[in-house]
């Protein structure tokens, strides 16, 4: 491939992602228990005209949900990409390493604690709780990573940490007595339902800020792809860089868990698909493409989750697992040497 061909390929990949994003956006706005025509939707969105019911469905339910899916889906897959870079392991991700489950545990415990006292948690405090949980799990994973250098062992330890956290969460949820427990149960399985504009604003602020920092870390990430020693020789401050990677990936995945619960496999599958599409691992391209890819993937999965068995809604994790897990298996088979 020469330079021109390569540039064409990158352009092509981004156009595909953008087109898919637009199509899925429209489809998601349209799909649901109450069918609306495209004309009606456009009227509602751009002219704020339409019947009250339709208006409310679009503005209060579907639009915030879609925006949340885009923001969180993107955040999740970028978080996965950062973890894969950090551990130099193609099947690392916030879910398999138990980081999402750690976040879930702390959020669930705090939620129950506050609900039992009649206080409901705000978006920001949910993120903080999830971040604390993520960092606790991450701490365990890092301890394990220090001892074992085998990649599959690391992932297995992560899965175990995830199970322990999930078990404790289930335990806590089972014995909690509150009417809101139903919501909590849905959330702990992973779901994009019930997003408010308030939620969207908070998550947008956090994720956009984190994404800007991640994007400006493209250069050291590209150096780090050659290994720690080369990166250091190129002038990267390894300690600071590693801390940055850990904090950013945790913030991104914590944000997802706080609002939508743990979502499986997006963090592994999307970066892999995006890299295969771009045929490069250059962070400058992969990071934005990952964000778009994550948004597309989650829009698609959420569409399935809420329409296939409507009015019953599937948990988002069961849908992402169906599409994401095969990708993970594929990666493991094709890179047996590395794992």
């Amino acid at each position, binding site marked *: 491939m020469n330079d021109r061909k390569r540039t064409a390929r990158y352009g092509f990949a981004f156009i595909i992602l953008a087109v898919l994003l637009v199509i899925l956006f429209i489809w998601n706005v349209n799909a649901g228990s109450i069918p609306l025509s495209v004309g009606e939707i456009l009227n509602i969105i751009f002219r704020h005209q339409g019947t009250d019911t339709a208006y409310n469905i679009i503005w209060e339910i579907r639009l915030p949900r879609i925006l949340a899916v885009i923001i969180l889906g993107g955040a999740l897959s970028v978080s996965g990409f950062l973890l894969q870079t950090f551990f130099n392991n193609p099947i690392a991700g916030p879910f398999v390493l138990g980081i999402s489950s750690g976040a879930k545990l702390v959020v669930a415990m705090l939620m129950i604690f506050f609900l039992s006292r009649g206080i409901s948690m705000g978006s920001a405090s949910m993120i903080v709780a999830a971040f604390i949980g993520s960092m606790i799990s991450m701490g365990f994973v890092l301890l394990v990573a220090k001892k074992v250098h085998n990649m599959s062992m690391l992932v297995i330890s992560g899965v175990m940490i995830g199970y322990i956290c999930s078990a404790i969460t289930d335990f806590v949820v089972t014995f909690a007595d509150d009417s809101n427990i139903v919501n909590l149960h849905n959330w702990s399985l992973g779901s994009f339902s019930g997003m408010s504009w308030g939620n969207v604003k908070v998550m947008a602020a956090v994720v956009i800020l984190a994404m800007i920092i991640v994007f*400006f870390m493209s250069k050291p990430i590209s150096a780090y792809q050659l290994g720690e020693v080369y990166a*250091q020789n*190129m002038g990267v401050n390894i300690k600071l860089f590693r801390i940055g990677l850990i904090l950013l990936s945790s913030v991104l995945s914590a944000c997802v868990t706080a609002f939508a619960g743990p979502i499986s496999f997006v963090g592994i599958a999307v970066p892999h698909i995006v*890299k295969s599409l771009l*045929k*490069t*691992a250059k962070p400058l391209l992969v990071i934005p493409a990952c964000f778009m890819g994550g948004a597309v993937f989650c829009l698609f999965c959420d569409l399935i989750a809420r329409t296939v068995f409507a009015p019953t809604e599937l948990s988002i994790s069961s849908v992402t697992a169906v599409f994401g897990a095969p990708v993970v298996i594929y990666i493991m088979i094709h890179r047996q040497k590395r794992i």
Partner: protein
Amino acid sequence: MENTNKSYFFHTDQLTVGYEGKPLIREINIQLNKGEILTLIGPNGAGKSTILKSITRQLATISGTVYLEQQQMASMSNKEVSKKLAVVLTERMRPELMTCEDIVATGRYPYTGTLGILSASDKEKVRAAMETVHAWDLKDRDFTAISDGQRQRILLARAICQEPEIIVLDEPTSFLDIRHKLELLTILKKMVLENQLTVIMSLHELDLAQKISDKVICVHGEYIEKYGTPEEIFTSQYIRKLYGITKGSYNASFGCVEMEPPAGSPRVFVIGGNGSGIPVYRRLQRLGIPFAAGVLHTNDADYQVASALAGTVVAEKPFEIISDENFEKALQIMEECEAVLCPLTDFGTMNEKNKKLLAKAKETGKLRES
């Protein structure tokens, strides 16, 4: 020493290195001028890599100081160091989806902007570096899909493109075949001569180390055992001691190793000289037949090999006619042997007595076709 450390491009002062605070090698004093090649030799596990890692700041030093252009390296920022010092490592990396050009381009890291986007002149430098190592044709190949020799050249190009004044290489020739070893070292030598590059590396190949280095360090035991020019280091005795060679020997003039001579009293006598004996000695050694060689002048090429492989060598001083004494000695040994081989065809004034030996062998019927 008269030459104070002030004038050196790179030097270490009582540097002690090791892992986790435990000293492995103590009080290393290296002094290197610009445009010199320093090679670290020594047995496996002696600590060559440890020294290199400490110099390149991957490993914290235990005590002592490393200076680059009179500046303490410990006080320099990563970025400053990265513009002066580049590394080529042994550890195998498998970066995914990176072309060789991408890999080389990472060498421009210290010079690019916030997002690391390459300018036209950066791209030109990447190309120039790849051309220096004759690897421009590999630019679009995936880095994980090329051979070891190619990979090592690409990594060298990466280091070159970082525009360092000093390159540190950890066993750059391991895994390479002889052609690629020579190619790689030739490129290094050329860069040293043309661009005043300074090189510090570890090598396993003593013959190559002897030929390419300006200075050699022998890493063995707790202290640097020897530090000097290749001429000072590469003596048969010292190399045997350094590596603890018990089987075989090291030939300092040829820079090659020889196997152990077959044990036992000589069964074959070889009349050699002028290089004709070498293939015969080697064949006998391979077959495990102990042999004697004679009469050889000590300045004859055959003498070098015979003294390593033969049980007994009857030797004469250079440029002297073979003495009667040596002739008698050879004759005596020949009589004790079962067979005589004579690959020698040129008889002159100095080795005329070898012709007599040949005649004697024919007479006794011991002469065999060699």
